[in-house]
């Protein structure tokens, strides 16, 4: 059985809250009831739109919105789990989609496949901009959360594109094969305020999530500064093909006789 992975999981290293990939997501609360219209962007280009009905009578606490589902350059998912679990009322295709959520609940924007690079903007249909309650994933605020997972071990710089004072360092350790199967620890939380990141320095295990809570306008970017390729001398991963095993040395003779052939 050959394993198949989405290469983007392993080949994309940096993260940007304003350009979401598979390794990052944004959580937002629509506190006011009403219908919101959302637009999904890839780069600067609009690739789809959706509606979120924020309804106090809705039992849906969480609307999971897969931004990759709006990308016509990606294959259509074979199943649409979100259609039954996330409040999605659409038909699961890449067409315009409607979601619903309770105002006490959350909308989670994530990317299920592909190279990503998505942003999302949503606002209420109202003439008064103050009543539009606009949300833009390129400018997080009001306790929006950017969830990021860094798989590639190394040292990263964290910065807030909307706040020059916010600088941080994230170190992701190299995986170790232990006596039990490794599972990433619980997420670590970082608060983004006017004063910067708190804490500014974070140490993570591989695959451990870090949650950036935007208490001030934020666009979080994480960039690899120094890669950690593991202990020196570890073998390179190459397709081994066929190799003749080195002949084991024989150091001492053992005499472990059996019953023998006895006539």
């Amino acid at each position, binding site marked *: 059985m050959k394993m198949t*992975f989405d290469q983007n999981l392993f080949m994309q290293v940096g993260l940007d809250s304003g350009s979401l990939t598979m390794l990052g997501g944004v959580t937002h609360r629509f506190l006011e009831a009403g219908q919101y219209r959302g637009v999904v962007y890839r780069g600067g280009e609009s690739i789809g739109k959706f509606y979120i009905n924020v309804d106090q009578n809705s039992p849906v606490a969480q609307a999971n919105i897969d931004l990759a589902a709006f990308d016509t350059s990606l294959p259509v998912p074979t199943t649409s789990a979100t259609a039954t679990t996330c409040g999605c009322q659409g038909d699961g295709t890449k067409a315009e989609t409607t979601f619903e959520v309770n105002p006490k609940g959350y909308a989670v924007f994530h990317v299920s496949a592909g190279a990503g690079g998505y942003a999302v903007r949503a606002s209420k249909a109202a003439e008064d901009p103050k009543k539009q309650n606009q949300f833009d994933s390129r400018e997080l605020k009001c306790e929006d959360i950017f969830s990021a997972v860094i798989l590639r071990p190394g040292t990263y710089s964290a910065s807030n594109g909307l706040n020059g004072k916010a600088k941080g360092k994230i170190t992701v350790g190299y*995986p170790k094969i232990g006596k039990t199967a*490794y599972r990433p620890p619980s*997420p670590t939380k970082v608060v983004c305020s006017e004063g910067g990141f708190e804490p500014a320095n974070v140490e993570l295990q*591989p695959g451990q*999530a870090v949650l950036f809570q935007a208490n001030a306008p934020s666009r979080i970017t994480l960039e690899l500064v120094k890669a950690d390729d593991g202990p020196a001398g570890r073998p390179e991963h190459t*397709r081994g093909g066929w190799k003749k095993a*080195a002949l084991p040395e024989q150091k001492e003779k053992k005499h472990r006789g059996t019953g023998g052939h006895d*006539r």
Partner: protein
Amino acid sequence: MSHITIAASAKAFQQLFNEVEKNFSFTKSDSANFGPFSASYSVSVHLAGGNLQLNNDNTFELQDVDIVFGTLDFKLCLDLPGFCIPSFCIVPDPWNGCLVGFPGFCIGGPICVDLNLSGLTSQITDLKASLVPKYFVDPARLAGWTDLDAELNGHSNQWQIYIDPVWVNVALIDVPATIDNILVNAINNAIHNLFPSWLPGWAVDLIMAFLGPIIDLITGLLGITTSIAEWLSNLLGNVFGLVALLETAIADYFASKYPLYQFEDPFPILPASGGLIPVKIPIRNLAATIDSQEMIVQANVGA
């Protein structure tokens, strides 16, 4: 009292035995399915060295003869069960639940490792034998031929003295402890070959960490409770029965495949010359015995 007595000193006997030993060869291949895994091997062996001792009880003993595996190719195939990494959380929700998960995946399926173990050895730890004479009638000899016709056509009858084993003991194959690392590395390589080639090394290590101590699981699957070296030696020697096969092959070879000594019957005394036919005497009642000094062959001149 015998008409003819021939003796071969211990040194001469050793030389005769060396010839027998040198011509021994054994090849075998086999495969078997053991449920969670299957294995196959292909071997060819020859004998070398050893200590020979003549006894006063009409026997000789042989010890510490190396059984050299000139070829020992071993193949192990595992149906790796689906070791699955469950989805783990990429985007956690504020209640410590999970909103977006790293897709779970399974690794599994058949993997095979080839080990070239040529050069390993076992030993004949002990072989005790006496001698037995056999009369060989060449099957190519035609019914109407005289002894002279048979000689002229190269199909004379023969007296042959064979080694007649009483017992043969062969030790388990001496697999060095270094095989542990070799097999583990081979299994690791086989598992790594399941990964896409583009996967960077750190990602492989991360996935292997997620999988956990997979080698422990595999050694459990193989039923390895001691060391891999002992397990392999037992698998080849006892489970495949290679030790017993070798013991039988060695006993059979000494007893019937290659005589220690043979000579023509009737035995030529004078060659043909001057138009006269050769002078030959028939040998009867041949016996071969051993004491601590020599091998003694006695016979009568028959009619």
